[in-house]
């Protein structure tokens, strides 16, 4: 199983990149500063967002986009960097959400205890289920993780002991929460929390990818047998990646439940995992910013298309139809996703430039 990602860049591109390096270093910092200061802006972008940038509705949508950017980056640790095609990632996200929600709402724990307990529980869950599922590989692994996630969806839907609220979902009780996270006026704090989550995930994934472990994971993606021949145990490294990705997803769940203010059974559905896959592939698997970008753009489109849908005819009114078709086209025509787009356009631009210069020299001679 291999995943096509941008690996060793050709020398020319590497030289161009060295020239641009200071820009690349600075770019994310600038983006971070812009995102962190967005709540201070009263700019309104008609057509892009319904209200001004610092309106609670806009901030909540942005916070959801940020959480999903982080979630997609965490999923990419599995898919793009280790080559594991898991169809059950939503389970750990949902475990973080429902774990926090149940502990706060039913058990009455303070938020930080509930969040820590949910995080620890979800991580342990990822470890145990990963240990079983990783006994298979490739497509069978995908099916098995899907089945496990389905059990999670069933447990939530059947509402054993009235814990999860079944189809209705479970609104988060506000008594146990710190005041800074309660109320519409404090949406801005949740927005910063979501931004912090995204930064944490990107930092962790980048740190892991740059470490010796990350190199082994990349080796597993490219040629698992060879890693085994080199005397490393593929199973153990894959389990580490699976557990870590599960923990990152659970952390995302903790943030998400605060942003949305409750849990709904939708987060356990296999559709959510599929959309994570779509985000990563649209953004560019195995790159640092591709999945983040993919996750944010996907969630934004998903929300905006729903509200724009009334004006569109027929199947175009269904966001999933539009996104599904874009996804299929992306698999065929942009295998590197958004992150690989500039690399794909570069030869075209170079060819165009060459043509214009030759035309110019022909006319002048």
């Amino acid at each position, binding site marked *: *199983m*291999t*995943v096509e990602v941008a690996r060793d860049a050709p020398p020319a591109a590497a030289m161009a990149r060295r020239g641009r390096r200071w820009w690349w270093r600075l770019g994310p910092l600038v983006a971070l500063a812009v995102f962190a200061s967005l709540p201070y802006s009263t700019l309104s972008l008609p057509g892009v967002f319904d209200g001004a940038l610092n309106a609670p509705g806009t901030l909540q949508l942005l916070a959801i986009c940020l959480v999903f950017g982080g979630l997609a980056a965490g999923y990419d640790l599995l898919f793009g960097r280790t080559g594991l*095609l898991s169809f059950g990632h939503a389970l750990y996200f949902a475990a973080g959400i429902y774990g926090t929600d149940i502990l706060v709402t039913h058990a009455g724990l303070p938020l930080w205890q509930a969040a820590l307990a949910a995080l620890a529980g979800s991580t342990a869950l990822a470890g145990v289920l990963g240990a*079983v*599922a990783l*006994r*298979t*590989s*490739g*497509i*069978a692994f*995908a*099916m*098995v993780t*899907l*089945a*496990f996630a*389905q*059990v999670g969806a*069933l*447990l939530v*839907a*059947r509402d*054993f002991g009235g814990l999860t609220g079944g189809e209705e979902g479970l609104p988060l009780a506000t008594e146990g929460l710190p005041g800074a996270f309660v109320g519409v006026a404090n949406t801005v704090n949740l927005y910063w929390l979501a931004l912090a989550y995204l930064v944490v995930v990107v930092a962790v994934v980048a740190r892991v990818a740059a470490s010796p472990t990350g190199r082994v994971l990349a080796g597993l993606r490219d040629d698992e047998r060879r890693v085994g021949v080199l005397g490393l145990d593929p199973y153990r490294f894959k389990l580490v990646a699976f557990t870590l990705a599960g923990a990152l997803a659970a952390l995302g769940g903790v943030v998400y439940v605060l942003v949305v203010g409750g849990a709904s059974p939708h987060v356990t559905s*296999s*559709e959510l995992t*599929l*959309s994570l*896959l*779509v985000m990563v*592939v649209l953004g560019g698997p195995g790159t640092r910013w591709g999945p983040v970008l993919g996750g944010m753009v996907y969630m934004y489109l998903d929300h905006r298309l729903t509200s724009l849908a009334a004006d569109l005819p*027929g*199947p175009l*009114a*269904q*966001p*999933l*139809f539009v*996104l*599904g*078709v874009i*996804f*299929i086209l992306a*698999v*065929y025509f942009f*295998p590197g996703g958004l992150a690989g787009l500039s690399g794909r356009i570069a030869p075209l631009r170079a060819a165009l430039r060459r043509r214009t210069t030759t035309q110019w020299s022909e006319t002048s001679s």
Partner: protein
Amino acid sequence: MSTLVLLTLTGLGLSALYFLVASGLSLVFGLADVLNFAHGLFLSVGAYATWWAAGHVPGAGDGGLGFVLAAAIGVLAGAAVAALVELVLIRPLYSRTIEQVLVTVGLSLAGVALLHATWGADPRPFPRPEWARGVTFVGGASVPNSSLLLVVAAALVLVAILAFLRFTRVGLVIRAGVEDREMVTALGVDVRTAFTLVFAIGGAAAALAGALGGVYFGSVSPSQGGSLLIFAFIVVVIGGMGSVVGSAYAAVAVGLLQQFVNYYGTAGLGDICVVALLAVVLLVRPQGIAGRAVTA
């Protein structure tokens, strides 16, 4: 005793439904290494085509021969869509497993959304022949005829697929391709025609499951395919990928387990037991019942 008979027969009806979906999945995976997420879509296409044909095609209807005609149209539609998907979407990505999975994922999202847009998200009442609504008395239990219909249909499909694989030349090519695709190609046989055929057969079986499942559930909705697909996946993994007979055994085990536990335990417990069974099978025998190694 009558409860036992009833549970066994309705459980077998469920098994039959799983088998019809899983057989195609298993064959497609065995031959082409494609995990087909769009298989649930073929089921929905079959169900909706049958439903549509019963209302619009002259001669088709919800009674007797009319329903047979409607179901035949549904099966043909499923097979046609499956063959088309293989030709247009899967074939250009030959031997690129991950991309194929991604395309079928996109297709399942877009296809279900298309069904939503066309016929709405609400379940539609499905045309049911008069006799399928009745019950038959077997061993003191009154068993719904729709369950029996499913069991008979699945048994016929199983026999037909096995006979096709064993006694025809194309079947020979498919069996050889499941064992070792490179060798078959090296011997000068074009396996790709077999791919299309296997897709069409799988699509037809899934569409039949859609049509008969519509009779069984009494309604048809866009999301039906997806929820059945997950259990079909479990059946395929337990049965051993690429083995039709393994799928049949696994489908019987899964259907019966689900039905019995759901009756004697809490509702929903059976579904969880099925996944537990999957975990146990994976721990004890990772290659599944029929024993073809499940590796990428």
